[in-house]
């Protein structure tokens, strides 16, 4: 019996050995070496084009299937599902009173309630904020079960294709990517620790730059990210702050593989902590202890000190403070805009057809998220470097922040919202409701000559802390 198995055993070992060697050689030639030198064979773009063709076919097949059964395909529309009134609430209520003459006494109309009521119910059916905190719904199917809403329209051919897709993604792409990821991170830690031993100077900073870029490029290939950089002449320079919209932790890798930045963040424990400490040895990043994060003055001081030193790299900050699903840009926190240096805005837009890059931190942990990313087809995104902006005379930090936000939203084709990304986890502040009440009171009272200040009933919650 044993002699029967023996030749096959040897043959099997030999085959495994050869395939592993082949695997690693291919890996080295086609992925790691180009990453080190920053060149590209164009394999990823070819991959992207062929995938797109397959997705189009899949969607058409589903539509045909739906038509045969005389049903309609479920098509998600992220631009809104109901028609909303274009006039503001104030104008709508004023229209009822359009008599032209300011009334001597407040006019209350029982029909005022209709406007409040309808707008309330409209926001229940479709509101602007809560849908930004969940993954965007895709219009065409990208062969991932996690994004399919028309499951019952799938034919046999499509199921086979999907099966092949699963095989390719989990058996071929995932191990490849995990290997690359470990290589990239490992190299980063080792190289930066080595470079940290050198004395400060031109050699150290240039070597550190090369090491960082190389490792980030390997990580980019670990995610099969196909990134298009636009307007590279506006790339951030030393002594400035780079601000970008935030969709996922991958944003950092995407930006850092094209330029060197000083990162800002909280000190973590575990593997992240090891990486952070290693990176700090090679070039100055800004890591805060958990307790220091609350102290706004300390944060501002450290940022301004860093920015004042022109030899240090530009700081990378995400002013939204939390991950948003890449359909909109939410309120920018004013902290980084108060420092008074040049701001380099960057817009990042992910192509939703290939996989959703949004990290829903309330649903998935970081490891789960990375596995999701590595087992999907890839990440396709565009990065636009916008021209630098400075705070103008008479503009305060909030107005400056809004101006930058509007520029980023316009370039990336995203909706520009005034709502705070913090609403993902917190309740909205009462002051906004009070503003609505004030507006209605103004309409009620009308504009009259002899308006006298009213004795207001004193209540305990008169003015909330903003």
């Amino acid at each position, binding site marked *: 019996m044993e002699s029967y198995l023996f030749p096959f055993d040897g043959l099997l070992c030999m085959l495994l050995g050869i395939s592993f060697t082949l695997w690693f050689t291919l890996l080295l030639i086609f992925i790691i070496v180009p990453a080190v030198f920053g060149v590209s064979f164009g394999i990823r773009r070819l991959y992207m084009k062929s995938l797109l063709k397959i997705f189009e076919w899949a969607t058409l097949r589903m539509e045909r299937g739906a038509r045969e059964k005389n049903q309609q395909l479920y098509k998600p529309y992220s631009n809104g599902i109901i028609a909303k009134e274009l006039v503001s609430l104030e104008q709508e209520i004023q229209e009822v009173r359009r008599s032209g003459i300011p009334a001597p006494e407040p006019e209350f109309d029982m029909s005022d309630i209709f406007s409040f009521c309808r707008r*309330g119910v409209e926001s*229940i059916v*479709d509101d602007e904020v809560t849908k930004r905190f969940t993954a965007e719904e895709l219009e065409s199917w990208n062969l991932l079960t996690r994004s399919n809403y028309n*499951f019952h329209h799938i034919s046999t051919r499509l199921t086979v294709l999907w099966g092949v897709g699963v095989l390719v993604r989990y058996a071929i792409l995932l191990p490849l990517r995990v290997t690359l990821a470990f290589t990239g991170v490992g190299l980063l830690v080792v190289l930066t620790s080595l470079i940290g031993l050198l004395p400060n100077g031109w050699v150290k900073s240039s070597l550190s730059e090369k090491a960082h870029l190389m490792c980030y490029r390997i990580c980019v290939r670990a995610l099969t990210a196909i990134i298009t950089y636009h307007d590279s002449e506006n790339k951030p320079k030393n002594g400035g702050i780079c601000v970008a919209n935030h969709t996922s932790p991958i944003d950092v890798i995407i930006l850092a593989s094209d330029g060197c930045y000083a990162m800002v963040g909280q000190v973590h424990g575990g593997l992240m902590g090891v990486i952070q400490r290693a990176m700090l040895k090679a070039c100055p990043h800004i890591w805060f202890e958990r307790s220091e994060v609350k102290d706004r003055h300390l944060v501002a001081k450290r940022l301004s000190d860093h920015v004042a030193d022109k030899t240090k790299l530009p700081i990378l900050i995400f002013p939204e403070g939390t991950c948003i699903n890449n359909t909109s840009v939410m309120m920018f926190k004013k902290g980084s805009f108060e420092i008074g240096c040049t701001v380099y805005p960057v817009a990042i837009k992910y192509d939703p057809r290939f996989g959703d890059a949004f990290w829903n931190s309330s649903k998935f942990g970081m490891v789960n998220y990375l596995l999701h990313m590595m087992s999907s087809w890839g990440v396709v995104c565009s990065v636009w470097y916008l021209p630098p902006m400075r705070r103008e005379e008479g503009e305060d930090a909030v107005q400056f922040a809004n101006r930058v936000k509007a520029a980023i939203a316009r370039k990336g084709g995203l909706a520009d919202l005034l709502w705070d990304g913090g609403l993902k986890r917190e309740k909205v502040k009462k002051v906004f409701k009070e503003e609505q*009440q004030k507006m209605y009171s103004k309409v*009620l009272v009308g504009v009259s000559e002899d308006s006298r200040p009213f004795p207001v009933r004193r209540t305990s919650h008169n003015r909330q802390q903003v």
Partner: protein
Amino acid sequence: MIVVLSRSMTILLLLKVFFCFSAVSHSQITRLYSRFHSLDKGENGALSREDFQRIPELAINPLGDRIINAFFPEGEDQVNFRGFMRTLAHFRPVEDNEKNKDPNSGEPLNSRNNKLLFAFRLYDLDRDDKISRDELLQVLRMMVGVNISDEQLGSIADRTIQEADTNGDMSISFSEFIKVLEKVDVEQKMSIRFLH
């Protein structure tokens, strides 16, 4: 999301039984179920008041609490998808009824009368089918906040009741309410149109 869809299939069958939804299209019901599911953070098939208050635009609406209350039947604090759809059905545009003339169906939920009844119930806090001076004052206070004095608000309420009250009981009944608003385009103000 596949879970959402297969559940919606069964719900669709159930809903088709209720005539008031037969004029609502398949895709509209699916969309609303998807919305219901995304609001239902506890994933127990029913919404609580907290789920509604998580919508920022509703939380800053001065009448937000009254609107939320309209979804919950007397004494209950959970609303299922059927109840959710039933309340939303009040806001269907009236033209939709032209497609579905069923003589046995009775008055549809989105008739002018029922839309007015919905608004009436926003004022009628204790559900006794009358809007008393006190109830009117409370609702007015919700809408204006702290910006108008008690005396002024009181006189507004008095004047409103005076104009509407025809039978002299110092409160507004539903028929008096209808009379006051007979010239208002209720159908347009209380309708929500789907884009697709």
